[in-house]
């Protein structure tokens, strides 16, 4: 348990740098898709695809979520 808490605490500086103070994170492990929602429901009206396999989710011009495919590629190697 202590190890799990440490991992979460280690992520705090990154979380504090997020563009919004409120966000929801949902990782679909089997599909390796990380969904980050800045509002929920997102009610996105458009999804833009980047060359890196990241889906930018907009409601009109407001970014309401980011979906990252193959999310485990961003894991820091131990």
């Amino acid at each position: 348990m202590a190890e799990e808490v440490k991992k979460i605490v280690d992520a705090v500086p990154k979380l504090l740098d997020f563009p919004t103070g409120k966000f929801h994170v949902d990782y679909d492990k089997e599909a390796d898709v990380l969904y980050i929602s800045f509002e929920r429901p997102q009610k996105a009206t458009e999804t833009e695809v980047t060359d890196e396999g990241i889906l930018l989710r907009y409601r009109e011009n407001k970014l309401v979520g980011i979906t990252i495919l193959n999310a485990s590629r961003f894991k820091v190697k131990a």
Partner: protein
Amino acid sequence: MIGTTISKNGVLVRLTEERWYHIVENHDELAGLSDEVLLTVEDPDYIAKGWTDELLAVRKLNERYLVVVYKEIENDGFIITSFITKKVDKILRRGVVWQKK
């Protein structure tokens, strides 16, 4: 299981309940469209290359496009995620591997 379908490569592609839960919980515009998602894999307008070994099935849905990201591993396939977009050109520029005639 929400459903299964056969892709253009003849592979059985699964849409599991767990996957669908993640999809509609986040991409809520797809709520109620599971049949359309399966149909897009079965009868797409285009199939484009993904970023690694995924395929992107694209089907026109009214004035927009339903895109389904899925994988085929030998004779097993599964849906990864799905979304709706107006900007299909950028997806097709990745490389069209199949197109409806």
